[in-house]
């Protein structure tokens, strides 16, 4: 199957001003050489701690921020070379849903204005009647009462506001939607409803999702494949079941074990915090906190290798670690 979205060697550097005290570092590498593929109708989960670059990467993909280097191929066309009207037209195929349903909706626009804006920009209707029809239909699809069209966002609860955000994203029937922590600001019972809605829309419209979340339980439930990021780089990629049941990279193992109630055993406690992204560790970026770090990890950057088909992992010591991981689970 042809991938609908192909991202290759994507980079986003934020230059730092030189001060005479700091020595070499010249940029924060928020997203450093990220490559992945997205296939039609699938959900790709992206996990990692705050500051690991998961949002930056995806915003660079959709060009909310301009990437420094790399390529993004959307449905066979080079998305990064598009300008002006072409870009506007191409953007109808890829949409985004944001984390905070309070700040991502304009408080001075009515629900109808918010939802219909993409439609008006692309002139995606024949006449007034059709426009109304599309708006009502979209509101029904996301479970909003079409009678609420003239209300303002502040009149809605968090879950309903997120539905407005989803309606705005799906109104043009995009092939890809980037969901940036869409349920993190919501309570569990509302979270479940929004997740179910996203799954329903995927079944009906065949949308592919890139689903960014720091909540591994949510990703476990919704994703088909998962990418794990650490300090701007992908450290592991695999399908849902494999990655959660048999994580290869030590960072993924620590991350999974840290979630209370998700794994059986107790947490593997990691030392320290995420290092400063402006001055990342040499070699493998995880070696400062890795329980399995060896001398080679400090010197040489591990490649993201596909040891098992469909499962990529960037670690020098994968083979040894997965053995010890298995020994633990047998106990």
């Amino acid at each position: 199957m042809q991938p609908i979205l192909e991202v290759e060697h994507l980079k986003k550097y934020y230059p730092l001003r030189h001060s005479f005290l700091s020595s070499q570092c010249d940029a924060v590498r928020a997203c450093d050489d990220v490559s992945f593929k997205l296939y039609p109708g699938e959900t790709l989960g992206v996990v990692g701690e705050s500051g690991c670059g998961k949002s930056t990467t995806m915003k660079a993909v959709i060009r909310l921020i301009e990437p420094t280097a790399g390529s993004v191929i959307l449905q066979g066309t080079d998305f990064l070379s598009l300008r002006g009207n072409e870009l506007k037209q191409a953007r109808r195929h890829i949409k985004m849903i944001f984390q905070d349903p309070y700040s991502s909706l304009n408080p001075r626009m009515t629900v109808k204005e918010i939802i219909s804006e993409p439609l008006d920009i692309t002139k995606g209707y024949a006449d007034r009647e059709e426009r109304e029809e599309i708006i009502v239909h979209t509101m029904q699809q996301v479970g909003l009462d079409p009678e609420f069209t003239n209300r303002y966002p502040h009149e809605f609860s968090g879950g309903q506001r997120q539905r407005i955000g989803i309606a705005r994203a799906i109104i043009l029937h995009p092939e890809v939607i980037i969901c940036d922590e869409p349920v993190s600001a919501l309570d569990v019972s509302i979270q479940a409803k929004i997740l179910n809605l996203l799954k329903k829309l995927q079944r009906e419209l065949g949308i592919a999702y890139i689903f960014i979340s720091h909540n591994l339980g949510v990703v476990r439930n919704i994703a088909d494949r998962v990418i794990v990021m650490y300090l701007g780089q992908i450290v592991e990629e695999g399908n849902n079941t494999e990655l959660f049941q048999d994580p290869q990279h030590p960072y993924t193992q620590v991350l999974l074990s840290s979630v209370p109630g998700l794994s059986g055993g107790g947490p593997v406690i990691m030392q320290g915090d995420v290092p400063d992204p402006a001055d990342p560790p040499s070699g493998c970026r995880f070696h400062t906190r890795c329980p399995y770090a060896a001398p080679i990890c400090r010197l040489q950057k591990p490649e993201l290798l596909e040891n098992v088909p469909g499962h990529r992992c960037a670690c020098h010591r994968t083979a040894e670690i997965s053995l010890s991981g298995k020994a633990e689970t047998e106990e």
Partner: protein
Amino acid sequence: MDEYLLEAKDLSVTLYTERGELRVVDGVSFRLKKRETLGIVGESGCGKSMTANSILRMVPAPGKISGGQIIFKGRDLSTLPERKLRSIRGKEIAMVFQEPMTSLNPLMTCGRQITEALRAHEKTDAKQAKRHALELIRLVGIPMAERIYESTPSGLSGGMRQRIVIAMALCNNPDVLICDEPTTALDVTVQAQILRLIDELKSSFGSAVLFITHDMGVIQQMTDRVMVMYSGQAVEYLQTEELFRKPLHPYTQGLIACIPGKAAVGHDLPVIKGTVPTLYALPKGCLFAPRCPYATKRCRCERPGLYGAGRHLVRCFQYEHKEASNSAADSGS
């Protein structure tokens, strides 16, 4: 054995707003023993933080404790004069808040904030206080204590800040530690470190912990007993293992079922229909009745009491006459 350190009896908190009186905490009772961790769970707006704040009489402005007692070491904190309460706050009962940035003063060094908490309650000279503060900073797992002692909170990461807040809370060896969502703003790996820390400190200081969170996973890991709250009421009291094995209240059942990590991969999650009622217009009967799949006519017009036996109490009419059989089943399993 049955000596309770902290006891809340029929505690109520009311917000006196322009639009009317809102009962945000409605007749909540709980008891806390030494070395025990009691969890309070519920969704936003259920009154769990209000309950926690009311223990030290820190309910924000339009709110007041409108009924009930808080018994701590034989004294009622709800009527104690402010001056006496201040000697308990931060000393015998300490609190850790959710957002470590807003609970620290951005203009004061971390060391100064810890010694301030120390010297507010004990007459020690500056040198001794500093030594004690450095000891605490090391105790909560911060390397390079001297450097952190001199730096302001803005230079620290979220996890480090929360450690400073915990060090402040522990500086006077409190008998009761109230943790209000202490890890919600932190990443999972840092959360694991902080939870481990609270657990270790609990066993070495022998404090009792009141742990407020909306995260069921954290509840499972940290607590012995749990109180589930809904719209200001306690709807179920139970042992933590029961919470995941056999919750009885329909709301608790729904809450456990919709945790994404536990459900089958790719399947739709079970949901609780409807939404939380607003406090301005609470239902006449059981507060959960409009959303409850088992609601009867009686549920809609009558408020249920707490039923059950011993440690497992449920606010649901289904269990009104099942006290005997229920406790028998408990002892059998």
